[in-house]
């Protein structure tokens, strides 16, 4: 009985989060083109619906009805599995993100947390682990296409992914040292009470601003966004690892990229900017409406990060491949390590501050 209720509750939660994420992806595909247009004195999509707001629907229809091509000589199984392999890790990370207050509601004798699907105490590790699995989707997609361009693109993307994956992991360590927990719920709760308690601004004793900068740069690189969008370097590789993909399979890679973007924004919000907490206590309102204000602040922060992604894309040119690798290994990595050392010393000297 209890198991049934728990299963139903969790499934409805997963469904709600998935629908929300996929709708956000649809909105992002439009918003990105709009924001880029606005920043470049263009209009963006205008034809479908008023102000082009039905463009995602049109895109979706187009992708569904496009011919699905599998190249001759491709490894059919891997070719069809690779998009899934890159999409699933992007979506699965949302399981540990706390979207609202850490409440426990009693539903029919079952302890139910409405605003986080599952609060596991290795949440950060879980997200990092699945983020690195996404690299398999990319490299297998490039390899199974039986095309040299795709293979080169896949290898390059994989090299980029693993070098920045490391920096993401290391930049998070400072936060983990200060919060002494890997659970995203616990990390959020440790930042309650106002923006000075957020780890970005020095909650826990030492500001993690540098770590945040490293994190956001590495995340941009890991989600393959401009200025690190080498997988799509159409001047050097035809279209990177998804050259041979068409129709819905291509859309899966696209969904994965946007899903990763949202996930990374959520993680940045939770780790450095206090998750669902308002910048001032009074903005949170009374305890009874914390769920509404919490979700509002969470969505607000995540949207700001997504806007930052668009903004970067509108501004910066693409890096060269060797510049990218050098920047990752020779600049970001030492900075992240130095940050860990400093944070560790300060956390040791002033425990509990």
């Amino acid at each position: 009985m209890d198991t049934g209720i728990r299963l139903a509750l969790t499934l409805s939660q997963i469904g709600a989060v998935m629908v929300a994420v996929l709708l956000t992806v649809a909105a992002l595909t439009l918003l990105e083109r709009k924001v880029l247009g606005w920043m470049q004195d263009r209009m963006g999509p205008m034809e479908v619906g008023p102000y082009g707001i039905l463009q995602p629907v049109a895109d979706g229809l187009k992708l569904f009805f496009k011919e699905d091509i599998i190249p001759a000589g491709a490894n059919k199984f891997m070719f069809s599995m690779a998009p899934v392999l890159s999409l699933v890790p992007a979506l699965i990370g949302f399981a540990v993100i706390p979207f609202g207050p850490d409440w426990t509601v009693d539903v029919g004798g079952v302890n139910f947390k409405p605003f986080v699907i599952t609060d596991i105490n290795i949440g950060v590790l879980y997200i990092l682990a699945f983020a690195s699995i996404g690299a398999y989707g990319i490299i297998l997609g490039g390899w199974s296409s039986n095309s040299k361009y795709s293979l080169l693109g896949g290898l390059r993307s994989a090299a980029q992914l693993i070098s920045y994956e490391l920096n993401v992991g290391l930049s998070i360590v400072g936060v983990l040292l200060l919060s002494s927990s890997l659970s995203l719920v616990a990390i959020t709760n440790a930042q309650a009470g106002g923006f000075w308690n957020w780890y970005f601004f020095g909650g826990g004793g030492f500001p993690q601003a540098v770590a945040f900068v490293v994190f956001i740069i590495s995340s941009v690189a890991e989600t393959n966004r401009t200025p690190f969008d080498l997988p799509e370097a159409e001047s050097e590789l035809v279209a990177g690892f998804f050259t041979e993909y068409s129709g819905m399979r291509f859309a899966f890679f696209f969904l994965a990229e946007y899903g990763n973007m949202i996930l990374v924004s959520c993680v940045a919000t939770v780790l450095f900017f206090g998750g669902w907490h308002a910048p001032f206590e009074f903005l949170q309102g009374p305890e009874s409406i914390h769920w509404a204000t919490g979700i509002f602040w969470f969505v607000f922060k995540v949207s700001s990060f997504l806007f930052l992604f668009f903004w970067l894309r509108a501004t910066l040119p693409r890096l060269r491949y060797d510049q990218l690798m050098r920047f990752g290994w020779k600049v970001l990595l030492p900075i992240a390590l130095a940050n860990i050392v400093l944070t560790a010393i300060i956390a040791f000297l002033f425990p509990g501050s």
Partner: protein
Amino acid sequence: MKLKEWVKTLLFYEIALGMKATLSHLLRYKPITLQYPHEKKQLPSNYRGMLALLRYDDGTEKCVGCDLCEAACPSRVIRVVSAEVPGEPTKRYSKEYYMDMTRCLFCGLCVKACPVDALGMTQEYEWAVYDKRQLQLNKQQLLAIGDRNYPIREKRLEFQHPNVAYFNVGFKDIPQKE
């Protein structure tokens, strides 16, 4: 100076400048887009678009089939098949007139070469087609383009200048194409 540059690099000064520039465009948003199929550009009056054959005000074709346009054309767009007017051995007219617009580079040399101003350039530019063969225009099509782009037609030359000889063919005298 060295230190200043270091500090600038560390604070991503150049990137911040660029981001400021893009953000300022977002805040002072003035699109320069022309919504093309709905809004159209005002073309300059010397715009050289689609070619057309013209008529006089009584409906007579101006073309006398002299082949000078064909000779003037650098990319051999034009092909004129001229013929004598039956019963009037000194008068000629263009029996057939073809233009292969896929090759035309809109230089206007044929218009310059025409002694009777039978050719004109219009402001039409929306001639994208799915089949290239649709761009091989015959005389009827070229005359139709001329009719819709030059509604005000000239008088016949002999009526403009009384001392000019009657040298073009009356419309009714031209044998109709079957």
